């Protein structure tokens, strides 16, 4: 009897431990979510006051002059991202096609490994690379060097996700095209790539989302500018960089603008991430059909 009672107590103790454990695990999962909501809350509350028409369309004002905006930074972000995308997509897609066609073996495996390693290289080191290749030899900062750094940051994600997208197109689809007499080139460009396109666009959206808020490599590539700069060979204002420089100044007006810029950045990243999710869902449905 006594033994059975102690067994009973033992089980009760184990159940309580389990219940406590699950509570701790739940709390840990909640911490992440709650922190996100707190950060979002601050950015929205503080940033909403700064964002208005002038903020989106005007040049920055000098210290002490109220008003002004980050219009040139927004424009610069688009220009630098556009050039980076134009460079990253061809290189990334070609590498992805290579990896998906030639699948296994030491060389593709090695390339895959290099790509994964690149994805872990700190963005500041990539900024130094862009500086060494494109800023130091030309002796001036430029938007183009920032695009180059962004391209390096986008490539790993683009390569690996596009490779998976191309691979997920059923082999029978490709074989069908070949059986109808298409060359490998036409089969890839006309049949396989269009089928994989929604997933590839997902990859591109995620890659853009990854770099749009990136600041570290911009410090010594794009450098920043007070003017409406459209020439990619000149230093250019970028939104993320403006948020950083405004945040570390002691002026309340600029700090407020930093929150406004942060709101824009976070909004852009979330829209891109959500867009990528929707795209991915479409891609999955397309492949199932």
């Amino acid at each position: 009897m006594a033994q059975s009672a102690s067994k009973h107590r033992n089980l009760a103790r184990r159940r309580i431990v389990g219940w406590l454990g699950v509570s701790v695990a739940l709390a840990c999962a909640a911490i992440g979510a709650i922190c996100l909501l707190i950060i979002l809350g601050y950015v929205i509350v503080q940033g909403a006051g700064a964002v208005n028409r002038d903020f989106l369309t005007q040049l920055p004002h000098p210290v002490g002059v109220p008003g002004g905006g980050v219009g040139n930074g927004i424009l610069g972000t688009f220009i630098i991202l556009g050039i980076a995308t134009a460079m990253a997509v061809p290189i990334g897609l070609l590498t992805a096609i290579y990896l998906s066609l030639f699948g296994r073996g030491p060389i593709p495996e090695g390339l895959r490994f290099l790509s994964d390693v690149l994805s872990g290289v700190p963005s500041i080191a990539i900024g130094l690379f862009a500086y060494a290749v494109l800023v130091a030899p030309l002796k001036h900062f430029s938007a183009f060097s920032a695009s180059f750094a962004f391209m390096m940051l986008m490539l790993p994600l683009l390569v690996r996700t596009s490779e998976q997208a191309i691979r997920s197109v059923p082999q029978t689809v490709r074989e069908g095209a070949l059986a109808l007499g298409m060359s490998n080139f036409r089969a890839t460009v006309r049949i396989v790539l269009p089928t994989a396109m929604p997933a590839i666009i997902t990859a591109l959206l995620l890659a853009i989302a990854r770099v749009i808020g990136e600041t570290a490599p911009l410090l010594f590539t794009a450098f920043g500018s007070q003017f409406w700069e459209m020439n990619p060979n000149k230093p250019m204002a970028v939104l993320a960089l403006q948020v950083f420089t405004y945040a570390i100044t002691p002026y309340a007006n600029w700090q407020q603008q930093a929150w406004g810029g942060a709101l824009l950045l976070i909004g852009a990243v979330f829209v891109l991430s959500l867009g990528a999710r929707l795209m991915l869902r479409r891609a999955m449905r397309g492949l199932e059909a």
Partner: protein
Amino acid sequence: MQNAEPQFRRVARFVSPADRGFAAVVYAGSILFALLIVGLFVELVLGSWPSIVKFGPAFIFNSSWDPITSKFGALPMIFGTVMTSLIAIVLAAFIGIMAAVFLADFAPRWLGQPLSFLIELLAAVPSVVYGLWGLFVLAPFMRTTIGPALQHVLGWTPLFSGPIVGVGLLTAGIILALMIIPTVTAISRDVIAAIPRDLREASMALGSTKWETAIRVVLPAARVGIFGACVLALGRALGETIAVTMVIGNRPEISASLFAPSYTLASVIANEFTEATTSIYISALIELGLILFLVSIVVNALARLMIWSVRGSERV
């Protein structure tokens, strides 16, 4: 290897002229990609060469960083980088793994999906936004509330003594932890979910509670992948720049207190690179970047190998 995927070999045979041209372009693109990565390494070595020649291996052990007399040593930055990353990984590993256990094994669908979604969004928040929040919200809160409370309880250890400035090692570590929690959580959750059901059922059949099964059976089975996730997250923490630069206080000193301002490899580059005037100064900064690059490569290669061994190279 060849038997595993014969269809690739067969389909990838390029015969017609158009195909040869296509193959050439595909090869060229891949070679360019590989060259970019190799070029990254070569340029960093070339850029830091004057500093490597002048200071030698002592660069790593020397603790003075003085641009005026051109004496450069990386030790304070290495210390700051290691300390902030350690704080971050200790916090993030516990929280992230526990969250992963909950999401994989215990969360009902209606709760698990939104929680996963929110935690994944945490990874999407730009670094500079973390820095902004850390600087204006977390740092003051550290100075007025968390810091004094910690000092009240643990002030007798050197780690928690000294003046509380707000910015410093601990604040930077907490911000970093927030930034890498999604990495730990997402990968660990996938690894845990991939553990075969039989194992859980066997454990439950032997009389374990669900919690005992999750902790004593499933977690050990998933340990390689989870460890890989933590190492990967550590790599992110080591190289994180802007957020850390904004909350670490930027002072090249080695101090026992976690409340003290410090400096990291990445943040000293971010702060001083455009102001560096002499070529040896620039070179020393690039050498810091090279150290960061090499460390992050080793850490990432390790993490990838561990995660690959569980999930296969094509699905990371």
